[in-house]
């Protein structure tokens, strides 16, 4: 009796060892494979009599909680990074980019005329300002949504922030040159129609009398464009 029991244990052990070896082989095959493998191909590489379906199910279970999962794609099997770790496979790089002429102009108008609405920007520029231009400015981190103008349509008002000052090396917004200085530096010609003024800019965060605070949803408008995804 005891001999039989012992035999059984030994058989059990050797079966377990066999199965473990089959799992190792399966794992190595899937790891080294250059493309997803079907069960027939896997079967051909495994020891005769191996139950490929059961082995795959076991391996899939083993890998399920891990950083890499065994997945079946179009009837074929492959190891793949766990879905929740996909972020690991991305890397952010900083790409220096120059602002477009339209964006620089719009930024300047926001700086000088803040709080300013999109319609007001367009009036000053004399051309339509695309939403993309304002999005880019929001993305620079130099322009912020201030509030909403108390006016029909309740348009959003834009202003600059500290990052703007810091990027352009300004101690305060009031350091932006006024009309006389612009003329003095030759950026504006002397002969201009009477009544031409350049505002004294202020980025005081206190809302003006004609401004309402932003509403909860305003900052999640998707105003910030998704970053460009580039495959390497």
């Amino acid at each position, binding site marked *: 009796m005891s001999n039989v029991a012992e035999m059984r244990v030994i058989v059990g052990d050797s079966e377990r060892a066999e199965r473990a070896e089959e799992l190792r082989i399966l794992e*190595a095959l899937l*790891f*080294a*494979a*250059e*493309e997803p493998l079907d069960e027939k191909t896997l079967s051909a590489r495994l020891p005769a009599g191996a139950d490929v379906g059961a082995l795959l199910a076991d391996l899939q279970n083993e890998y399920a909680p891990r950083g890499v999962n065994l997945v079946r794609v179009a009837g074929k099997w*492959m*190891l*793949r*990074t766990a879905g929740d770790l996909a972020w690991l*496979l*991305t*890397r*952010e*790089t*900083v*790409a*220096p*980019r*120059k*602002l477009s*002429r339209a*964006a*620089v*102009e719009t*930024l*300047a*108008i926001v*700086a*000088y005329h803040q709080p300013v609405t999109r319609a007001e920007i367009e009036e*000053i*520029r*004399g051309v339509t300002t695309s939403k993309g231009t304002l999005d*880019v400015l929001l*993305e*620079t981190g130099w322009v912020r949504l201030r509030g909403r103008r108390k006016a029909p349509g309740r348009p959003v008002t834009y202003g600059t922030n500290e990052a703007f000052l810091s*990027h*352009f*090396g*300004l101690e305060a917004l009031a350091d*932006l*040159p006024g009309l006389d200085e*612009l003329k003095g*530096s030759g*950026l*504006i*010609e002397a002969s*201009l*129609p009477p009544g*031409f003024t*350049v505002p004294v800019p202020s980025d005081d965060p206190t809302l003006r009398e004609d401004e309402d605070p932003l509403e909860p949803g305003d900052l999640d408008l998707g105003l910030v464009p998704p*970053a*460009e*995804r*580039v*495959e*390497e």
Partner: protein
Amino acid sequence: MSAEDVAFESELEAPAAGEPALVVDVEGFEGPLDLLLTLARQQKVDLAKISILALADQYLAFIEAARKLRLELAADYLVMAAWLAYLKSRLLLPEQPAPDGLSAEDMANALAQRLRRLEAIRQVAEQLLNRPQLGRDVFQRGQPEPIAEIKRPQWSATLYDLLSAYASRRQNQARAIVRMPKRSVWSLAEAREAIERLIGRSFDWSPLDQYLIEYLVEPSQRPTVLASSFAATLELVREGRLEVHQHTAFAPLFVRARANESASGGVAADAGNG
């Protein structure tokens, strides 16, 4: 030891006893040192205990055999043979100070050292090649997953960009407004409306200019007012609502409302052509 006693193989293994007497195959050797090493291994002793004298004899016998077979020997084999012959003679003679200061013993040791070094490097080369090699025995991930790059733009602009863009845009806009005053043209419709209103139902002949006096004050307006009102007048005449009268060419135009709708305006209109 005669050459016949020595068998050669390009392989490193020592030849089994009773093999063909002599295989002189210089092609199989990687130079004289390799040949020497192969010969040395046939002494079947540790390289440290090798007899350089015996080795020199074997080498010289091999070269002699090759020469008898008229085999072409590369120069470096012959150089080595000459050097070994010299070494052998020095080893056999009582020690004398050598011109280069090396004793025959030193020279023999240096050769033995070179042989040991070559053998050692061959052994480790074999060990190295027997290691599992990547792509031959072990494999890396067959489908590596590429890292996608997310380009985060870092925007830049200078204060000068900012100010010059602002200044030129504001300046251009200011100019654009001045340069394009509202064009004041008296349209045909305006003229017609004015004439209908002014002449109304006045059935007496009156000069057209008189009706338009208030519109003709501004000199720049005169051409457009006159042109449009004349055209409007003719239109009203054609419709039979006005009558036009002119004494001679370039004389003032007289107009009056028509009392009788059925009367012919054709003649009067002709007069207007002057």
